């Protein structure tokens, strides 16, 4: 299946936040752990990530949505971003 536009942009944002080499984020799959699995992804970095998602994907992230589930895996974050974009 072709990756969606949201998928590509989200991988790009994670590449920037985590300082990954180009292409490295292509290896992320739905089960790749994020918050709690990547030591550099602390609360400040996650907050920056979410602001960047808002700006680039043109979505609004509500406080209520910020639970452990949202950031647990790449798949969860992508599903959330896609749902917000079509909302």
């Amino acid at each position: 299946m072709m990756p969606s536009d949201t998928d590509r942009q989200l991988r790009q944002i994670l590449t920037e936040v985590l300082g990954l080499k180009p292409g490295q984020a292509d290896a992320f799959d739905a089960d790749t752990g994020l918050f709690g699995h990547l030591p550099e992804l602390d609360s400040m970095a996650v907050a920056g990530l979410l602001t960047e998602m808002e700006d680039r994907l043109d979505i609004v992230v509500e406080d209520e949505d910020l639970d452990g589930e949202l950031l647990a895996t790449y798949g969860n974050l992508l599903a959330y971003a896609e749902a917000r974009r079509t909302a």
Partner: protein
Amino acid sequence: MIEILSYPCPLAGGAAAHELALGFDRERPVRVLVVPALFDEANRLRRFTLEVMRRLDGAGIDSFLPDLPGTNESERELAEVEAEDWIMAIEAARREFGATHVLSLRGGALLMPRDLPGWSYAPAKGGSLLRTMLRARVLAAREAGREESSEALLTHGLEHGLDLAGYHLSPEMVRQLQELSPPARDDIAVIAQDLIGGSGLWLRAEPDEDASQADALAAVIAMRVQT
């Protein structure tokens, strides 16, 4: 060579405090006032900022990086400082160093002197910076098992001040940040990240550096002052 300089920064009531600044000063005709990024972004961009200044020095351009009152080596308490004080401090530094141009980084764009031409690198709205820091606090609280909300924190902050990202912001600082946006000005060229290449270092989870980005930003400035 890099030098530690100081500039007289006005205080309420007419007195002045001395704040420090880093400078490359060889009395050359082009003198760039560098307005730093704000709060945690200042830390993540500090190295990059100095790398750009070193390159400007190599290209025959003087530059000056003032401390903002309440940050770095300043003796002022950040909790008593407003964004308006920062704007006055930047204006004072501009006069002291005889700046001919300004280069702001990220939130520094909110503090630029009104009539100094120059560049804004990846300017950020005060509201976005605030929102990111509020969210970081909500996330950290949640991890610790406490429930906070951005909205309630903001309401509290506007009345009593607020600790965000390790900085104690005064109520005035919170209010002014919310309202400040980078100005759209003909004499300020916006330098977007696309032009610099790579990804913005302020986004990185950990401080980093990138020589090619520093080369690119310094080159944009050096080219434009010479034409």
